[in-house]
């Protein structure tokens, strides 16, 4: 590395940059915790301010907001069952059950620790292996995205324990929802029923807020019991308990962080898929898969480490290839362009100063999340637990409306949010969970477009199956994972019944 290491460190650790990282993390955490307000939005608003700064300082602040926002998404997921960002969808699976039974403080601490681990792993990969890893973004093509989406969909089987059929019906419904609007391929207008408001499709964030949050709100009103079990007084952060759990789950954390980094590199995937896949992997390799979805700490650790690892991962193709890994990366790339910084492998050698200062800044911001997150998390938890229901419900209801409006500053998204919410509540009464629907909605487009492109390219080259699977080694690997994920539970069941051993 042809640059002055001491200079980079002195810049990254300069009081001003540290202050920016601090402000960025706090701001990002709050924005991420509020559903509907996204990292992309926050960064876009703040981009002009960074023009007045030194480029590296501006970048540090944007990076800190980004990583803070991904982490903040866990707050709403754990405390009110609403993913603050799509990246936190899978955190609701175990986070909310934990909070409900009175372990919300532990869940928050675990989310903080896991986010820091994931963020650090992602940042280390970014600093050390970027030019090499960027090639993954190019090796992943349409057929791989198709199979990756299918792998994500297999999670429906494990999420709908007890009633796989209802899970599949929910998933299929989600897939139908994902088709609404103008198709990217073919340009057909589907299921809009003549309404121009539906041309843009169902917005994922407004559907998330509706499907997860509204049923919880209705239940809070309908039932007399407390919303969350209060934690006994003076229990603190439960930091040592959480550290112990982390030690037990060291491998899980590491695997999820690596999965998060790798999926973060893929421009068409992102935090939601990263956390879903690592959740699925954690569940598959766990000794107690039946505990997942009922408040299993390992589930939170998997999803939160994975989604924060995507931050570092996403910057890899952004900085090396000029291809944004995630939507916030796209905004940051735009800001770089306006600053006159050219991305590319040479960014790591020539203009190394700026890039390395930024990467150290990102690392510092991630580590700062530990004390800040523990502190903010504790107050957020106390606030939610101690606020009386009569106050909490209208407050959250108001936030859902503001949040879904804020996505595109469009009242139409509020209508979608409320309708999805009422629908989700009714379906919930009939025993259909929201998660399979959300999986279908999130993954449907990726699966459809991946398949259609593979089909069209295969058609042009007269080699459809080769394009979809046979000539593509990465696809083999993903298909193997799909087979294992789907086959293993069946095999286990078969063995158990074969040996006559009762489960």
């Amino acid at each position: 590395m042809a640059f002055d290491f001491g200079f980079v460190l002195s810049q990254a650790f300069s009081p001003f940059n540290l202050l920016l990282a601090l402000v960025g993390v706090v701001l990002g955490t709050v924005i991420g915790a509020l559903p509907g307000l996204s990292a992309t939005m926050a960064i876009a608003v703040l981009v002009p301010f960074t023009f007045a700064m030194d480029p590296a300082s501006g970048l540090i602040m944007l990076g800190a907001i980004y990583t803070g926002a991904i982490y903040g998404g866990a707050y709403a997921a754990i405390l009110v069952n609403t993913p603050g960002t799509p990246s936190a969808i899978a955190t609701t699976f175990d986070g909310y059950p934990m909070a409900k039974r009175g372990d919300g403080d532990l869940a928050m601490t675990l989310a903080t620790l896991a986010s820091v681990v994931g963020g650090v792993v992602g940042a280390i990969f970014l600093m050390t292996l970027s030019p090499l890893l960027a090639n993954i973004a190019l090796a992943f093509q349409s057929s791989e995205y198709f199979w990756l989406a299918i792998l994500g969909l297999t999670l429906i089987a494990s999420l709908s324990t007890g009633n796989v059929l209802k899970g599949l019906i929910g998933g299929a419904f989600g897939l139908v929802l994902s088709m609404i609007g103008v198709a990217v391929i073919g340009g057909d207008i589907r299921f809009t029923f003549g309404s121009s408001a539906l041309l843009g499709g169902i917005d994922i964030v407004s559907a998330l807020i509706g499907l997860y949050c509204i049923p919880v709100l209705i239940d809070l009103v309908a039932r007399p019991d407390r919303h969350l079990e209060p934690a006994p007084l003076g229990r603190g952060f439960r930091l040592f308990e959480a550290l112990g759990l982390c030690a037990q789950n060291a491998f899980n954390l590491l695997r999820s962080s690596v999965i998060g980094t790798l999926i973060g590199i893929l421009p068409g995937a992102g935090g939601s898929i990263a956390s879903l896949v690592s959740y699925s992997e954690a569940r598959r390799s766990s000794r107690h898969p039946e505990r997942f979805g009922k408040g299993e700490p390992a589930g939170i650790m998997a999803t939160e480490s994975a989604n924060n690892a995507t931050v570092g991962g996403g910057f890899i193709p952004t900085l090396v290839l000029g291809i944004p890994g995630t939507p916030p990366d796209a905004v940051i790339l735009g800001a770089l362009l306006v600053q006159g910084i050219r991305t590319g492998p040479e960014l790591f050698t020539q203009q190394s100063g700026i890039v390395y200062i930024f990467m150290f800044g990102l690392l510092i911001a991630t580590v700062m999340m530990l004390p800040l997150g523990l502190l903010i998390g504790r107050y957020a938890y106390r606030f939610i637990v101690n606020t009386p229901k009569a106050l909490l419900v209208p407050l959250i209801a108001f936030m859902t409306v503001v949040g879904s409006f804020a996505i595109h500053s469009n009242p139409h998204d509020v209508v979608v949010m409320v309708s999805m919410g009422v629908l989700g509540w009714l379906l919930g009464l009939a025993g259909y969970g929201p998660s399979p629907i959300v999986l279908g909605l999130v993954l449907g487009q990726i699966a459809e477009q991946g398949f259609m492109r593979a089909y069209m390219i295969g058609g042009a080259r007269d080699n459809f199956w080769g394009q979809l699977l046979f000539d593509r080694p990465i696809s083999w690997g993903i298909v193997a994972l799909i087979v294992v994920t789907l086959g293993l539970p069946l095999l286990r069941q078969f063995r158990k019944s074969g040996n006559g051993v009762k489960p």
Partner: protein
Amino acid sequence: MLKKLKLLAATAVLTVAAGTAMAFLAAGTAMAFPDKPVNYIIPFNAGGESDVSARLQQPYFKKLTGQDLIIQYQAGAGGAQAWSVLNDQVGDGYTIMGTNLPHIILQPLLQDPGYKTDDITNIYMFHFTPDALLVRADSKFETVQQVIDAAKAAPGSLTVGGVATNTANHIANQLFTNLTGAQLTYIPYTGTGATTPALLGGEVDLLWGYTTVAAGQGDKVRMLAVAQDERHPLFPDVPTFKELGIDMTGGAYRGIAVPSSTPEDVRKELSDIIGKINADPEFIKEMEQAGFAMLNVPYDKVGAFMEERKKLYEDIARQLGSLK
């Protein structure tokens, strides 16, 4: 912590004060309109070409008028979500919106996006990203003629990527086929960001992109031709389609529109301001460095420009078979 916050607050106050002082100095030479910040709505997500070009305009607007240009995003339905509510905004000149061609012509032609092309009052078209045919740096294609020959030898066997269906890229592909007889298989992607890895990773053989893509990717891609009247200053070695005997000029045009209730004199003033920014050599340099091509269609010429483009796009849309 508190001290640091105080320090930050103090710095912020100082910055604002300095900024205001400078604004007053600049405003001394500026005109009466605008006398407060102007909202600039971009109907797409941040980070795209529309956003980047607006960001480049921002400082010049401030320099010229002493007022801030505040960029906001209202993305959705390929821009239709914002354009369908443009005329609901207050028409006092303090709300302006980015418009894009062929979007605002094709969308109402093909579906009902909640607005009509004529509902949109464009006051200036200030740049475009010329269509460009790109290949990977290691591709066997060196010239457009080689592509045409290969495509004629095996019609439809070459794949070309582009952004979505019924878009500028899709139209460029159809126009290319019409003019050369070369059949390419068009593969739609979700955005410019998704097309670049498809080309670099080898999923598609060719890419319908813009000069901005080539500017961002440097020596990893090769541009075979650009759809401009003259060669782009950033790529003096890349021929135009016209030079090759293929009559293609165009791409994605970007302009600025106002609500229809905006008075005539304000429309003119805004058009003048945008025109002055467009004439600033520094601005031109920055825009061209990013791969944009300058365009000057002020308010009094924009009507004729739209008519000409409308006719072109209608013919192509009919050919694409999407027009009933």
